[in-house]
């Protein structure tokens, strides 16, 4: 017994002598660990020194795709101005008011709109957006002192503003936080690919490409068809609660566009379609009971293809082939 205990004790001592601790300390140099981490850690962007924040004047008609600070200064009365914001598909837009010097009582305003509106047509459409139309306009003069930050629901937003007095100014700080489940996207490019996933949510999502494109759907997975067949009492996919439709039109609003095709069966091979409209939308309607996914690619149609579609098509709303 004593012998076993001694052996164990010797073993422990042997282990202790073999294991050595290493101590280390961070050497101070010009870049402190904190400073370095703040540069690399996107969550700490607020603490980034000013020379790293992009800044430029905002124009009366402007398009902003970058993060940073944008200052509008009125050199003369500007009565109708609009600035568009656009981000990557998996980002949303965060607009923060800074140093606002306008005369709300004198008729000046700054209104941020949750989406884009052009010629009276809005994206996303009222059917695809959670808020009613009037709540999508957020007026600084009504709520700016209370609510200094506005976040969009999708990757596009815009701001309308009017200033009467010379010298009035305001600054908008734009950030683009990540959106893990993007729904309602406008593509920045005429070519690309995207996979839209609606995870058991009762919502409709649109992917808008403001170019005439050929869409190639690589994969469509609508949850319900794995379990039981849908009862088709009506032609097409009208009876299905979950389906994907391709729309074409010459406006911004998907609900005013024309359905070119609808898909309510799973498949795994490319299915392609050329849509010669100014705006092409892939829209997924989801009942909320299943996880639905569609993966597609798109590329710009060249002039020859567009011409061919125009010649061959019998419909005249846009030209599809």
């Amino acid at each position, binding site marked *: 017994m004593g012998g076993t205990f001694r052996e164990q004790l010797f073993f422990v001592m042997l282990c202790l002598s073999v294991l050595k601790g290493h101590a280390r300390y961070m050497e101070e140099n*010009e*870049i402190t660990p904190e*400073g*370095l981490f703040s*540069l690399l850690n996107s969550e700490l962007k607020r603490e980034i020194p000013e*020379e*790293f924040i*992009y800044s430029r004047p905002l124009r*009366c*008609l*402007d*398009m*902003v*795709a*970058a*993060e*940073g600070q944008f200052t509008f200064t009125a*050199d*003369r009365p*500007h*009565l*109708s*101005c*609009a600035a*568009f914001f*656009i981000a990557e598909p998996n980002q949303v837009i965060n607009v923060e008011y800074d140093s606002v010097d306008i005369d709300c009582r004198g008729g000046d305003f700054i*209104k941020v709109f949750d989406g884009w*509106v*052009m*010629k*009276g*047509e809005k994206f996303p459409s009222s059917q695809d957006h959670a808020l009613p139309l*009037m709540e999508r*306009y957020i007026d600084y003069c009504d709520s700016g002192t209370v609510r200094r930050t506005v976040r969009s629901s999708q990757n596009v937003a815009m701001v*309308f503003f*009017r200033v009467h007095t010379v010298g009035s100014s305001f600054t908008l700080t734009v950030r683009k936080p990540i959106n893990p489940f993007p729904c309602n996207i406008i593509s*920045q*490019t*005429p070519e690309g690919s995207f996979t839209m996933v609606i995870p058991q949510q009762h919502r409709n999502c649109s992917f808008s490409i*403001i*170019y005439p494109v050929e869409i190639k759907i690589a994969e469509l997975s609508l949850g319900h068809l794995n379990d039981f067949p849908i009862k*088709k009492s*009506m*032609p*097409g*996919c009208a009876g299905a609660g979950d389906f994907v439709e391709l729309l074409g039109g*010459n406006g911004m609003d998907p609900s*005013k566009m*024309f*359905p*070119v*095709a*609808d*898909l*309510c*069966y799973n498949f795994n091979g490319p299915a392609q379609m050329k849509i010669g409209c*100014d*705006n092409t939308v892939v829209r997924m309607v989801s009942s909320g009971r299943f996880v639905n996914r569609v993966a597609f690619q798109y590329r710009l149609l060249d002039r020859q293809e567009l011409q061919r579609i125009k010649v061959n098509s019998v*419909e005249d*709303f846009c030209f599809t082939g």
Partner: protein
Amino acid sequence: MKPVPLILLLATVLLSSHIPPSVCRPRDLAMFDGHGYKSQLDEVLLKAGDNAISYLIGEKILRYLQRNPRLQAGLPPQFPFEVTPLGSRGLGHLARSLPPLEEQRAPEEGNSLEEFVELTKRNDDPTISIDLTFHLLRNMIEMARIESQKEQAELNRKYLDEVGK
């Protein structure tokens, strides 16, 4: 003929003439002729009729701008705000005051290039909107992307400079 065989014959004829719906074909567009599409088209045509001249002049101004992209970048356009679309007279003034295409190259001398965008506010719908063509919108997105990529490259360079110290 006896009634029962007749009924059977009728039933057979009716059933055989039923055409089963096909799967996943493009939706029948005939249903739009009765409602939405036609009325939208009428609405657009009426509006265009009212604003035909202003629309044409507006298009001309847009094309002018597109041919001179430098003017887009340097100049903040001024738009008189009106409840209705700018009348043909107003746009006529504007178009006449536009400098000839070939000579004008300097955007900064308070030049008369204005009003290629109009804000319309319909009386029945308080939505604030803007009139742009898709062509102009696409150009603007392209320019904004280039700016964003330049900014990101500049930022990356600054980060690398910091790290490299």
